C-alpha cells in the first residue's frame, strides 16, 4: 500500500490531526477574496456606466463619503444607479444561490431556480395583475409574482409528497414539471384573452431591472438575506444530500426534511428575485456550474461563491443591457442568455466538463 511505511514512521500526532483539509481551506480563502474583489469592481462598473459621465475616482470618493460631485451627480448615483446595481446584485445572488441549492438537493446538474414551477407561478401571478390593470398599484406586481412563485412550488411539493409518489427528489422534479406546464398553460390562456397587455406581460417574462429602485431592493432584501443565510448554513447539508437519499440517510441526515429546508429557502429567494425583476433565465443554471468548474470546489464552497459571483454576473449583464443599445435598453434576460450560453460553453471546454 502506498506510503504505508511513511505512516508507520510518522505516528499520528496532534499536528497531524489538526489540519482538516488544508487544500480545501486555502481554496476557500483564495476564491472568496477573488469573489469579493470581482464584486467590488462590478459595482464600480455598474455605478460608472450610464449616459452622464462620472469619473471612477469620484465614484470611489463618493463611496467612502468623500468626493467632489455635483448635486445632480450625487442624485444620479444615489437614486438611479446604486439601487439598480444593488437590485441586480441581489437578484443575481438569489438566483445563483438557489440554483446551486437545487442542483445539490436534486442531484441534477440541469436543475435551476425555476425548476419547481416558481417561474410559471410568478408569470401567472404577474399576468393576472397586469390584465386586471392593477400593475400600477404599489407592490401589486411583485406581491402577485411572489405569491404565484410560492404557489407553484407549493403545488409541486403537494403532488410529490403523497405516499404513492414516494417523496423522492425525482417525484418532486416531475411534480414541478407538471405544475409548470399547467400554470404556463393557464398564463398563456389569460394572456391570449387580453392581448392588449401583451407587451407588459412579455416585459415581465423577459426580466427587467429598469424599473428597479430602493422600493424593490427593500422588498426583496429581507427574503434574499433570510434564504441566503439558511442556504449558507445548510452548505454542509447540501454536501450530504448530494450523495443521494440512501447514503445521506445512512449518514444520519433526515433526507425529506433536510431537502425541504433547502428547497423552501431556495424557492423563497427565487420568488423574491422574480417578484422584483421578472424572469431572468440562465443565471441560476450557469453561475453555480461556472463557479464549480473554475474552482473545482465542493458544494460547500460553491454556495457562498455563487452569491458573490452571481451578484457580479448580473450587475455586469445589467450594465450591458443598458449600454449596448443606449439610450434604449435590452431586456436583461436576453443578455444573460446571450452571454451565459457561450461563456458556459467556454468554461465547459476549458475544464473538460464537470469534475
Amino acid at each position: 500500500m502506498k506510503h504505508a511505511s511513511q505512516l508507520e514512521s510518522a505516528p499520528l500526532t496532534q499536528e497531524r490531526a489538526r489540519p482538516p483539509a488544508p487544500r480545501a481551506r486555502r481554496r476557500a480563502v483564495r476564491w472568496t477574496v477573488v469573489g469579493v474583489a470581482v464584486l467590488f469592481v462590478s459595482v464600480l462598473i455598474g455605478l460608472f456606466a450610464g449616459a452622464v459621465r462620472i469619473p471612477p475616482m469620484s465614484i470611489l470618493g463618493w463611496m467612502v463619503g468623500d468626493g467632489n460631485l455635483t448635486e445632480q451627480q450625487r442624485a444620479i448615483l444615489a437614486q438611479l444607479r446604486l439601487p439598480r446595481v444593488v437590485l441586480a446584485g441581489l437578484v443575481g445572488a438569489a438566483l445563483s444561490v438557489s440554483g446551486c441549492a437545487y442542483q445539490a438537493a436534486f442531484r441534477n446538474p440541469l436543475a435551476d431556480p425555476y425548476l419547481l414551477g416558481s417561474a410559471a407561478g410568478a408569470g401567472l401571478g404577474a399576468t393576472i395583475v397586469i390584465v386586471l390593470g392593477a400593475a400600477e398599484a404599489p407592490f401589486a406586481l411583485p406581491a402577485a409574482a411572489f405569491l404565484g412563485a410560492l404557489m407553484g412550488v407549493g403545488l409541486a411539493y403537494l403532488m410529490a409528497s403523497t405516499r404513492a409518489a414516494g417523496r423522492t427528489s425525482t417525484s418532486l422534479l416531475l411534480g414541478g414539471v407538471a405544475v409548470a406546464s399547467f400554470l404556463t398553460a393557464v398564463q398563456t390562456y389569460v394572456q391570449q384573452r387580453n392581448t392588449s397587455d401583451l407587451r407588459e406581460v412579455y416585459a415581465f417574462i423577459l426580466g427587467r431591472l429598469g424599473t428597479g429602485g430602493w422600493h424593490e431592493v427593500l422588498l426583496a432584501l429581507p427574503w434574499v438575506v433570510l434564504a441566503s443565510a439558511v442556504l449558507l448554513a445548510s452548505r454542509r447539508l447540501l454536501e450530504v444530500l448530494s450523495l443521494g437519499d440512501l447514503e445521506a440517510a445512512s449518514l444520519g441526515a433526515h433526507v425529506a426534511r433536510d431537502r425541504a429546508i433547502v428547497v423552501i429557502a431556495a424557492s423563497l429567494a427565487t420568488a423574491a428575485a422574480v417578484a422584483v425583476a421578472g424572469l431572468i433565465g440562465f443565471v441560476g443554471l450557469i453561475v453555480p456550474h461556472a463557479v464549480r468548474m473554475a474552482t473545482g470546489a465542493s458544494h460547500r464552497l460553491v454556495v457562498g461563491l455563487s452569491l458573490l459571483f452571481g451578484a457580479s454576473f448580473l450587475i455586469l449583464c445589467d450594465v450591458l443591457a443598458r449600454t449596448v443599445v443606449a439610450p434604449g435598453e435590452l431586456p436583461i434576460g436576453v443578455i444573460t442568455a446571450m452571454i451565459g450560453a457561450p461563456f458556459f460553453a467556454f468554461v465547459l471546454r476549458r475544464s473538460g466538463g464537470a469534475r
Partner: protein
Amino acid sequence: MIVARDLRVSRGRREVVHGVSLDVPAGSWLSVVGPNGAGKSSMLLAIAGLLPASGDVRLDGGPLRDLTVRARARMVALVPQQPVLPESLTVAEYVLLGRTPHLSLFGSEAGRDHEQAARVLATVDLAWAADRLVTTLSGGEFHRAVVGRALAQEARVLILDEPTSGLDLGHQLQVLELVDGLRRRQGITVVSAMHDLTMAARYSDRIALMVDGQLVAEGAPGQVLRPDVLERHYGVAVHVMRGPNDELIVVPANAARSAP
C-alpha cells in the same frame, strides 16, 4: 449485538424479505450470501434502518425503530454497494462527512471531528491522500475512503453491501483485511453481503445463505458452504476444498456450467 426477528421488507408491492430472523453477536462478522435477487441487500438495509420493514430489529437490546435518524447513524454505518463518487471533494472532506450524525442540523465540524477524521485516514492508510480529490483515487483506495467515512461515524455496527464488487483481487483483499483488522482491534460488529464465497468463508465467523427472501442455512462457514447445499440453491455443482492453511475454497466443478 444485532437481533432481528421476523423481518419483512417490501419493495413496491412485492415482499422481497419474508420473515427473516437472525442474531449477530457483538464483534463478530456475519456474511449473507445467496444468488442475485435473493434479498440480501434489502435485508441489510432494513437492519441498518434504511428501508422500511416490519418485524423487530434490536441493536444492543434497544429497538431500532425507537432511535432517531442521527442516533441510528451513530450506531450503524453503511458501506453501500455503489457509493456515489462526489466530483469535487478531497479525501479528508469526504471522510469528514462521516461526522454528520455527531453534528447538529446546521453545525459544522469542530476540532474533535477533524482529529477523528485524521485518525480514520491513518487507519485506512489514506493519510497521504487527505488533500487529494476523491476522483483521483483508484477503485480500491476509494473503497477504503468509503470505509473511512463509515468509521468516522464511530458506529459499533458496520454494514457492508457487497464491499468488493468491481475490485480486483488485490484491492478486494485490502478492503476486507482492513475491515477484519478493525473488527479484531475495535470489536466492531460486521454484517456483509458477499458474492465471493471463498472470501466470505475466509473472513466471516458465520455465514447466512439467503434464497428467495428467506434464510435457508446459517452457521459456521464449513456448515453452510457444502457442495450439496450450494448446488441446490445456486444451480451449479461446486467443489469445496481446503487450502494450505485449512481455509475453505469454493470453486465451480464445471466451468461451462458455472456461467449459465
